[in-house]
């Protein structure tokens, strides 16, 4: 069994040390590093190779949520928090857990078991996931589950499942972060996940309307219609 590479992020040294001691008894866990703030953690995460992130929520210079928001793709996250579990409960869709400090060893073992279970169930490499936040509500969602991004001013509305969160990122910025083989710029306002296209209807002027999962329909601009035909070669 390949070890789980974990990163511990907490601003208190004693808290990090305590988690290290708790993890020491877990045979298949390797501590890849620790960070005392969001910026250091971001650098370590961008370097790659982290499977599980133990993340404190309240930290100086940026909360745990701020850290996740800055990442292009998030690893499995286990929140560690002293009291504000309500903040973690803000999650709508998530494959994550939270541990209340001081942490019970059994709870830690259960959280790690859940991570292993999810990893075993997923094909390798594990699915890329992103952290989305709309006000108080948060989601950690697989990129492949996102059907559509729609620009709303400087913000973007993401469509997945029955959720429609408005995220504080421009469509431009999002486009640069996602795989261009998967996400297609249908128009000035729309970024479509090609894997969720169920059908294409002809519209006037040689342009198309794509039918997406969840009954969504998006008009493709004339210029992009040509490109869509080339990409999908029909």
């Amino acid at each position, binding site marked *: 069994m390949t070890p789980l590479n974990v990163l511990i992020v907490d601003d*208190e040294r004693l808290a990090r040390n305590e988690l290290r001691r708790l993890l020491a008894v877990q045979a298949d866990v390797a501590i890849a590093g620790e960070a005392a703030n969001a910026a250091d953690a971001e650098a370590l995460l961008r370097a790659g190779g982290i499977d599980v992130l133990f993340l404190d929520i309240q930290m100086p210079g940026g909360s745990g949520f701020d850290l996740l928001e800055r990442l292009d793709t998030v690893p499995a996250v286990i929140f560690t928090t002293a*009291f504000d579990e309500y903040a973690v409960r803000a999650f709508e869709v998530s494959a994550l857990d939270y541990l209340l*400090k001081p942490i019970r060893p059994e709870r830690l073992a259960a959280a790690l078991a859940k991570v292993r279970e999810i990893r075993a169930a997923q094909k390798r490499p594990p699915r890329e996931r992103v952290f989305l936040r709309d006000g108080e509500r948060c989601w950690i969602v697989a990129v492949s589950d996102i059907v559509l991004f729609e620009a709303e001013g400087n913000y973007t509305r993401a469509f997945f499942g029955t959720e429609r969160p408005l995220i504080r990122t421009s469509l431009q910025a999002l486009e640069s972060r996602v795989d261009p083989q998967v996400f297609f710029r249908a128009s000035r306002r729309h970024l479509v996940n090609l894997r969720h296209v169920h059908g294409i209807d002809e519209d006037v002027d040689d342009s198309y309307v794509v039918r997406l999962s969840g009954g969504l329909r998006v008009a493709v601009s004339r210029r992009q219609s040509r490109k869509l035909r080339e990409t999908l070669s029909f």
Partner: protein
Amino acid sequence: MASTANSRRFHVRTRTVPKTTALYWICQAAGWSGFLAYVLVGYLVFAKEHQLGDVVTIILTSTIVPILMTHGLRHWMYLQRWQDLREWRRKVRQFAAAAVLALSITAAFGFWNGLEHGRVWMPTGGMGWMLLAYWWAFGFWIWFYELAHQRRRRNELELIARDAQLRALRGQLNPHFLFNSLNSLRSLIAEDPHRAKSMVTGLSEILRYSLSADRKDTVLLAEEIGVIDEYVAVERARFEDRLRVEKAIDPRALSVPVPPMIVQTLVENAVKHGISTLPAGGVVRLEVALQDRTARIVVTNTGRFAPVPDERGFGLQNAAERLQLMYHGLASLAIDGSVSDSGEQQTIATLTLPLEFDP
């Protein structure tokens, strides 16, 4: 940067008249009925002839008119905030108010009725006696009203104190502090059992103090500073060298009575906003000075003052409410942002308490 634009005052000053209760109107009716009975008996015994018109006048001038007058006085007292005045100032005003009301009702009665018929129905007779009877009645009304008002305020204070007891566990001694400290403690047990032991006693002191805070109106500042020292020691285990504390305390101020947990709340807020949000930490400074018959307690922390109304601000709001109820506006609490001489952002909480105060 001007500090005034970036400040938030916590004074709880309201110029409102409390709603009347059923009991108030019952007391009004009962009190003035008694007065009416007194005047009626005087009329029946002393007047040479009895007329229905006289009886109507007596009823009006002994019940409805004085009830309207005292009800108006009640509004005036609240709008002028008599309850916040020092005792003797209030007494002088009350004495004068009773006199003014008695004079005006006697004068009005005299012009309308007394002068024309030359009749006064007071048991003892004569306008002078009438004036005295009214003066006495209005004076009694004010005395009784103040008694009731004080009783009500005491009940309110008790409610607030009970609330404060809950908040001591839920808010003032914030659960973040408690659980993070317990987590640090768990870690210290492995790393430094000796320090872990002293942290246990420190935490116990803080818990005991905050639990008993509601049972005392005031404690000596020395006691409050003692528990602040324990608190800082526990927080230093968490924040290590990120937390630096400076104290400048006038030793004469150590025997000043202060409401428990209020200075502690200010220090805790300073740590929460000034230390835990800054990666490099910062300095919390506690200064106590005696000045103009007041104790000035100033808690300064490095870090920008961000007057964002969040739910955690209620620790300070609660402190301001308790101060208002206990000191009738003679104490004040203000939080301001400013820039220090060395150009650093800082947040300053200033608590001013009167030295001599008789609650």
